[in-house]
């Protein structure tokens, strides 16, 4: 050892089993005698459910059970809202639709059968009588008077209304030298992990405990909610998140099936599983991003932004479930980005529509607000005839202003930017991409009839929210180190990262450390993996536990070596008197002594283990600058990304290889949103993009090489100095690419205010040149 592992570019401990095909995703877990559940889903966007008859389905050979909402009891518990606000209206979703269905895909009944094939056959036999109602699909239309109403408690279809205000925005606009405003629309799109959702459950014959395996990002929260809905004590439910094939926020949710599978397993006292198929996935996964921002900037004569005013309509879909207003709140409170804007007023209207419920997806509100802000920044630069990089630089928060309290707080955390040098990041990115040379390059290209553009996005991301995370570190008497974490990662390389932290602390080989996640049976409290929490929250809790273990090991070693603990050092898994390796004790020997019956100092409890909870409400903020260069084919509207540069600052980086992987993956999703991905509904609320034929994900030929530069502003908020960074790529990617496409074509006399910029849209924009306003 001796080489510090935190900061090292090392390969992941997770990989060998995944490479061998030995990963254990939910559907891979062998449950002998398992039954298969399938869900009958509403074909209507909005309808009254007059009757449901599961009887004929029960008759089919191979069917074991079938039930509908009527079987849930007269007063079932709804999926709870975790962060209600004062203006939140009750728009509850139950495990199965009761009186009405409010989106295509909402569950109406379930069948449990010997095979998934038979379960699907039986769904066709269930008789449901619907009275079809008018649906409302567009969020702006939904909040107009006279629109079809989804929930009686929200007669105006407003699920909640949020207001964030700092300073005196009206006065700022009155005194403004210039005002620039526009309406910016982001489309509905979402995470679409390659592994769909899945849940399996079985009762433990010995303990009676209901064990649930779920492809999910927050096992402890899932346990609490499912136990509550099923009316069971928490100790009777154990949730395990096995290998999870991507989540990106969409699996940080409690879905109806998370309740239905355990319920079915309890009813039958047999193992039951449900694996979401891709069609169900498109219909029922939480959707995200669909927001309209009416945004305006007040500029003074020096082109400083003195005021920002915004009205957001956020499309929340048919129900508010666990995270309800979170995405809307995070969009509203992140809209000023890392610009020093003294007066801000944001109003957010959460509009209910007959579509799949919305919730955070990678970036959680920040991609939406960044698109509005960074797009308007370019529009303003053009209108005010100032260079867009200079306009940004002039308005960035200066290093001497850090930490910077924006005065705003989302339902999750206060927006206090903890550390960073934003102008330095911008300048570094501009240098990497040779911004100064681009104007000439663009002139030359245009002279040749080619359309090239460059787009900048400067953003910050909430990087590790509280309120806590839990971890245990144990050295067993054979000297093996095991870490249990409340995290539930989905491919982020967290096991490697935590092993690196523990390796530094205990001076053992990181590959020898076993890291276990997502098992409520192994650690009492946990929160999970979302909001880029792992490095900050899991990392710190693991560091705390490892430190405690180390301290205890050293005290024990001092006792065994009859030395003063202050004279000892830990090297290569051995405790020794400093500089005297001849008399040293291995961690194994120390751990053996720690076992009950061993030789310990008086009063020292047995075992070499520590369970620690890192409690923290102040979240760090990482940030970055993305710059994309694109070429637009004027004949086809096709966009080719020719260059992509990222400067990222996430404080101390635990493993640069993993961090860069997160950036590249995030950018791919961001550019997918800018150019391709869209969840489309028709006017009646019928989904139009419910397969991979119609929902276009970026492929290997669509994503460019991504060049990454790092800055390091350690966070003062945790002992590691780390900040989360997994979402930044998706925030910067969307807006940098959209701005680049805009830059390639806006000189023709058009304005880009919406995404996705799919080829047909880009071509139509070019055609409209001269017809659109300036």
């Amino acid at each position, binding site marked *: 050892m001796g080489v510090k592992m935190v900061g090292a570019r090392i390969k992941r401990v997770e990989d060998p089993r995944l490479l061998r095909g030995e990963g254990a995703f939910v559907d891979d877990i062998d449950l002998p005698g398992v039954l298969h559940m399938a869900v009958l889903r509403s074909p209507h966007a909005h309808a009254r459910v007059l009757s449901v008859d599961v009887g004929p389905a029960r008759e089919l050979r191979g069917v074991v059970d079938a039930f509908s909402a009527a079987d849930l009891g007269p007063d079932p518990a709804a999926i709870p809202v975790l962060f209600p606000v004062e203006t939140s209206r009750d728009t509850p979703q139950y495990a199965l639709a009761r009186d009405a269905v409010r989106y295509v895909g909402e569950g109406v009944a379930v069948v449990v059968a010997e095979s998934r094939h038979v379960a699907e056959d039986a769904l066709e036999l269930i008789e449901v009588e619907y009275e079809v109602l008018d649906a409302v699909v567009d969020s702006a239309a939904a909040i107009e008077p006279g629109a079809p109403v989804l929930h009686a408690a929200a007669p105006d279809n407003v699920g909640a209304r949020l207001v964030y205000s700092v300073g005196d925005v009206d006065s700022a606009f009155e005194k403004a030298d210039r005002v620039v405003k526009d309406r910016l629309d982001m489309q509905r799109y979402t995470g679409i992990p390659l592994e769909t959702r899945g849940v399996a459950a079985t009762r433990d014959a010995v303990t009676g405990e209901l064990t649930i395996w779920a492809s999910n990002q927050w096992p402890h929260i899932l346990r609490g909610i499912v136990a509550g809905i099923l009316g069971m004590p928490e100790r009777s439910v154990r949730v395990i998140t096995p290998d999870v094939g991507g989540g990106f926020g969409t699996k940080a949710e409690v879905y109806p099936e998370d309740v239905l599978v355990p319920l079915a397993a309890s009813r039958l006292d047999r193992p039951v599983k449900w694996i979401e198929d891709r069609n169900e996935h498109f219909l029922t996964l939480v959707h995200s991003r669909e927001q309209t921002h009416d945004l305006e900037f007040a500029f003074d004569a020096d082109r400083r932004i003195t005021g920002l005013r915004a009205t957001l309509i956020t499309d929340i879909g048919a129900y508010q479930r666990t995270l309800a207003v979170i995405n809307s709140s995070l969009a509203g409170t992140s809209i000023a980005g890392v610009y020093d804007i003294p007066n801000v007023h944001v109003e957010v209207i959460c509009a209910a529509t007959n579509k799949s419920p919305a919730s955070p997806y990678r970036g959680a509100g920040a991609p939406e607000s960044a698109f509005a802000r960074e797009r308007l920044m370019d529009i303003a630069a053009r209108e005010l005839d100032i260079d867009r990089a200079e306009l940004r630089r002039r308005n960035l928060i200066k290093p001497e202003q850090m930490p910077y309290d924006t005065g705003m707080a989302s339902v999750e955390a206060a927006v206090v930017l903890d550390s960073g040098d934003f102008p330095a990041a911008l300048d570094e990115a501009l240098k990497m991409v040779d911004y100064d040379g681009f104007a000439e390059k663009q002139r030359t290209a245009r002279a040749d009839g080619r359309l090239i553009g460059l787009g900048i996005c400067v953003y910050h991301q909430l990087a590790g929210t509280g309120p806590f995370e839990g971890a245990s570190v144990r050295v067993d008497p054979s000297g093996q180190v095991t870490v249990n974490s409340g995290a539930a990662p989905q491919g982020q390389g967290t096991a490697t990262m935590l092993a690196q932290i523990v390796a530094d602390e205990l001076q053992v080989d990181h590959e020898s450390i076993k890291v276990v996640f997502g098992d409520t049976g192994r650690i009492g409290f946990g929160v999970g993996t979302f909001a880029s929490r792992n490095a900050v929250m899991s990392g710190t809790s693991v560091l705390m536990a490892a430190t405690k273990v180390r301290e205890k090991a050293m005290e024990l070693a001092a006792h065994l070596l009859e030395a003063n603990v202050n004279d000892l050092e830990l090297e290569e898994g051995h405790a020794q008197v400093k500089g005297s390796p001849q008399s040293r004790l291995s961690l194994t020997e120390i751990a053996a002594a720690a076992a009950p019956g061993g030789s310990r100092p008086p009063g020292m409890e047995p075992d070499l283990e520590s369970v620690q909870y890192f409690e923290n409400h102040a979240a760090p903020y990482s940030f970055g600058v993305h710059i994309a260069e694109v070429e637009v084919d004027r004949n086809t509207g*096709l966009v080719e990304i020719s260059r992509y540069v990222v400067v990222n600052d996430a404080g101390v980086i635990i493993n640069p290889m993993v961090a860069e992987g997160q950036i590249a993956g995030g950018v791919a999703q961001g550019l997918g949103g800018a150019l*391709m991905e869209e969840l489309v509904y028709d006017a009646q609320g019928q989904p139009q993009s419910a*397969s991979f034929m*119609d929902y276009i994900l970026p492929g290997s030929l669509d994503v460019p090489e991504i060049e990454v530069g790092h800055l390091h502003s350690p966070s003062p908020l945790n002992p590691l100095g780390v900040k989360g960074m997994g979402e930044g790529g998706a925030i910067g990617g969307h807006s940098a690419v959209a701005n680049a496409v805009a830059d390639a074509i806006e000189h023709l006399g058009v304005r880009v205010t919406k995404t996705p910029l799919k080829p047909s849209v880009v*071509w139509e924009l070019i055609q409209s040149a001269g017809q659109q306003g300036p």
Partner: protein
Amino acid sequence: MKPAPYDYYDPTTVQEAIGLLNEFGDEAKLLAGGQSLVPMLNFRLARPSQLVDINNVTELDYVRRDDGVLVIGALTRHRSLEQSELADGAWALLPEALHNVGHVHIRNRGTVGGSLAHADPAAELPAAVSALGGRMVLRGKDGEREVTADTFFEGFFTTALAPNEILTEIRIPAWPARSGSAFLEVSRRHGDFAQVAVAAAIALGDDGRVIQGGLAVAGVGGEPVRASAVIDGLVGEQPTSQLIGELTEEFVAELTPPSDLHGSADYRRQLARHLVPRALDESVRRALA
């Protein structure tokens, strides 16, 4: 996404397969490569009572040159035809088109006959076969008939095949020595179905004038749209850019493509306007090479 129940048959001869189709009528579906049918089965959009799997009818898996005609068995995999050395000259249009069909995984299973009989209006192979003047051999219980592409493709996912007939062979006629062809398409993403695809073939006389041609466009109608007027306008003329441009404009003005979430009718018309001249120019260039 599991298929509804069906009865499964896997005949080993064409005769046997026809017998089964005859017995079951239009309740039955023929399964070839399965790259389009199986997704439809999985979505339960197709729910045949009987599935007649012809993958063991190996007598339909061949590519050969017969009296100057390229003869392709219906069960020939896309990948085989894509790599066939026989497909040269204007016929090289076929491998070029196939290169745009899905991905190598798809082409390893997908069959030539399956693509044609499925008749997806955005599919590549029907356009290419149509442009080359290919003819389809359909066999039923009472014998065989040979039809042109125009007769074969009747509209969206519809062909001249009777429920008890099998497409057994595709015959691509010989093209003159100085021939060239080109296939161009725009799709949302590599391997996706075309938004618009253009298949072109041109033969030149010794004086450089066009003596024969074929042009078909996918994605702009219910079936591959044959641009006969463009070819008629070119035959006997020097294929200048100006002439091609004028003929393309006339052709595009007549098109009535569909609109969907990937693009409007206007956009598809534009893609045709963009791709047709390029495919023709490239065909001419290759004919001269």
